[in-house]
């Protein structure tokens, strides 16, 4: 029995040849298709299944360097034209959008109704909903509202075999069936094409105010936040920034949002709590001068720090109160030029970015950071780096030690994409 060899893809969607700028983790796809409708997109995936072509999905292109190089890529499916808001029910506080809708556009549409999707990933004007789900992108709003996994309530996606499937629903409370939406979060297009997603929404706060502190060490940051928590303060967003992550020069921004009276009261109490930290009332001794002001400009600096040009971008996850946090940021920054860091100290998540220096030194710093984080379950993932750095390490840093979840992940991938046609090798452990 002979299987016919398919010479040409059977696709109706607009297609063109791949170019260097279409590369996904350095691999240029043979062709790029931009379907106009979800049905068309489904047909592209089904066609690739019939023809056994390997494909990857591209949204706003903000995380095209994340992951390992795919082993093979025939088709890149761009979701740019799949950008409808399918349903917004303001009174039920839910929205369903197509995968290619840009976060910024969705926020503007929701804002007209006094609502928001409580998510502020970087490059919001480019990043698409599908891409944000696939890469689990986030920002400082995660402090209060959690990540996209905490906001998504339903999903429909196209499996590798071209079958459309759905999980969750459009009501905020629902435990019927397996939570497929969560399974797709962070899956980087290796389980299927996210078609539409439904989210719970929140009211836009009446007002917001940011207190920014200057010249703190990370230990100061941790102490200050502990004091804020003890004082029952509930910030909407917290971020720390540094242009010299190897020293005690962090800026800390704490934003309160809600009704005017509550915001004013919390802001005042934070300043009061900070004064006590300064005096060392917690027994930690003098933590040095803490200056504060009401500073919305802090978030512009935050945006520049997380979304500015850099050839290296590394994500760090650790316990929020890890005493070795400062050492970790210093170690990862040291081999980079123009190093800078953004740290979300209540979450224990941060990004170190800068320009590549000596590849050996960068790879060694990452491996050392991973070793130091291993006992507490932390991780270091390379989101972007030149090929010279990638060649020296596993960008995911996921091993298969005792009690590893990798065998289960592999099993899952085999069940959902048995022919390994969706960005093969891009995800953790070669999945």
């Amino acid at each position: 029995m002979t299987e016919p060899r398919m010479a040409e893809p059977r696709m109706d969607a607009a297609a063109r040849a791949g170019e260097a700028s279409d590369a996904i983790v350095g691999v240029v796809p043979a062709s790029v298709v931009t379907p106009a409708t979800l049905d068309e997109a489904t047909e592209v995936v089904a066609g690739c299944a019939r023809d056994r072509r390997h494909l990857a999905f591209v949204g706003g292109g903000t995380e095209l360097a994340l992951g390992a190089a795919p082993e093979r890529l025939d088709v890149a499916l761009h979701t740019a034209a799949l950008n409808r808001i399918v349903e917004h029910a303001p009174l039920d506080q839910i929205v369903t959008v197509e995968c290619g809708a840009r976060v910024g556009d969705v926020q503007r549409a929701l804002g007209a109704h006094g609502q928001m999707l409580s998510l502020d990933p970087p490059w919001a004007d480019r990043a698409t909903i599908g891409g944000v789900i696939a890469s689990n992108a986030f920002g400082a709003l995660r402090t209060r509202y959690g990540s996209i996994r905490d906001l998504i309530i339903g999903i429909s996606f196209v499996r590798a075999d071209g079958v459309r499937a759905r999980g969750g629903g459009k009501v905020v409370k629902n435990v019927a069936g397996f939570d497929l939406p969560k399974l797709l979060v962070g899956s980087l297009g290796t389980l299927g094409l996210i078609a539409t997603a439904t989210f719970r929404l929140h009211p836009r706060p009446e007002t917001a105010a940011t207190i920014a502190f200057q010249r703190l060490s990370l230990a100061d940051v941790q102490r200050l936040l502990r004091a804020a928590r003890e004082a029952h303060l509930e910030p909407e967003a917290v971020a720390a920034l540094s242009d010299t992550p190897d020293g005690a020069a962090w800026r800390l921004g704490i934003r309160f949002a809600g009704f005017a009276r509550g915001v004013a009261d919390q802001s005042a109490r934070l300043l009061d709590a900070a004064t006590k930290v300064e005096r060392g009332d917690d027994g930690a001794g003098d933590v040095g001068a803490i200056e504060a002001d009401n500073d919305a400009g802090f978030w512009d600096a935050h945006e520049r720090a997380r979304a500015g040009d850099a050839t290296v971008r590394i994500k760090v996850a650790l316990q929020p109160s890890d005493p070795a946090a400062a050492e970790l940021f210093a170690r990862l920054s040291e081999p980079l030029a123009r190093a800078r860091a953004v740290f979300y100290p209540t979450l224990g998540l941060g990004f170190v970015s800068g320009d590549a220096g000596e590849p050996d030194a960068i790879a060694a710093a990452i491996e050392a950071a991973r070793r130091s984080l291993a006992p507490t379950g932390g991780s270091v993932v390379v989101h972007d780096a030149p090929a010279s750095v990638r060649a020296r390490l596993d960008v995911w840093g996921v091993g298969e030690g005792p009690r590893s979840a990798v065998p289960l992940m592999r099993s899952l991938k085999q069940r959902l994409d048995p022919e390994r046609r969706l960005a093969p090798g891009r995800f953790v452990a070669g999945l």
Partner: protein
Amino acid sequence: MAAIVGAANVISDAADLRTYECDALTSFRARPSLVVLPASTDEVVAVMKVARAAGMPIVPRGAGTGLSGGALPTPGSLVLALSRMTAILDVDLDNGLMRVQPGVINLDVSRHLTPAGYYYAPDPSSQSVCTIGGNVAENSGGAHCLKYGFTVNHVRGARLVTADGDVVDLGEGGVLDPPGYDLLGVVVGSEGTLGVVTEVVLRILRRPEATRTFLAAFPSTDEAGRCVSEIIGSGIVPAAIEMMDRLAIEAAVKAVGVDWLERWPGIGAALLMDVDGPRAEVEHTAHEALAIAARTGAIEVRVPADEDERLRMWKGRKSAFAAMGRLASNYIVQDGVIPRTEIARVLAEIQQLASGAGLRVANVFHAGDGNLHPLVLYDARVPGQEREAEDLAAEILRICLRYGGSITGEHGVGADKAPFMAEMFSEADLETMARVRCAFDPDTACNPNKVFPTPRLCGDRPGPYRAHATESDGRADRG
């Protein structure tokens, strides 16, 4: 088995096995072959390996408070009761984490944290008896999940023993964003079908500085529903908004002795609401919410005079299911979800169906998120009435689906609602979920016959990819 867990922790006597025939959904019963109560992960692994070798399905069980038959034994199964695994292993206030064994009672987590001023947010009505392991299996909610989310939003790690007896750590240490698929997210709420969770890392929260509670009496559920919509539309995110209709109020009055009927003879609906958070914020939102209640037609809004009265109000709500026993000899607790803006219309449809069937339906529900708990009252001694009640309960779920809702908001699918899954999901959806199941448990040995409407086989375990013969010899390729 006795060699693994000790003879005292193996139950095989027919009379003793009866305790494990069902969970809180008592209309479904099946006798297991054996009940084993392990004390550690190692014991769970050993028990599962022996059971699997003997071809016995494994049915995990916490406190047995589930309302969907999720812990219903399969004939010939081994029930793995985790109620002895009650250790609190670690509390880390600085990182907001707590590691517990699955048999720890939900309320005991918060009790343990009270002196430090912390708590665990998910609060199912059964929280004084249900276990964390059961909560993880069912992705339990509770009155306060409107603001704080469900179990899945508060579990940061778990140790899972798979059907094959492998131990896997998901989200080890509780650090966010472990690289890889979010297996933890799908294990939570999988109703024991993906393995047995033997350790859980919980996210714990600082207790809110202030909580304001009030009870608003309304002439009918229409006004109460409008009040809910207006409060939420105003930008307030209440910690909880619970509604009870007249029949549910009558039951609560009889059971808990609250004076709501004496005080408000014309009461048709009660709204119980919590707002919490930093003090100044709470004072503002409570003031606003009270004003909205008055504006939308409340007969009276009562603010509890002290903590005692506050707890009594909540007791009136939380004991509502059990209180039904005072109104009828039998009742079915239903659990469905609708978009909250449809509350009034859906309640009217339910009442119409109930009148048509000659049955009474009491409604107690989480109004903020549209999670209805219609209680269908009946008398099993009247021939045919049980069947009519079951049919009515089923029709209520179909109404929920027609309004774009769900067949379960927090009780789970279990054995009870498995047939309805095919009404909510397409065959492709279910087949996809089944693939996930097969990835974890290819022999469907863990909690079989739950969640899925029809038994499903997984087929072969996929091995590593091997080239098709036509590819190997160059006649075809993967292009």
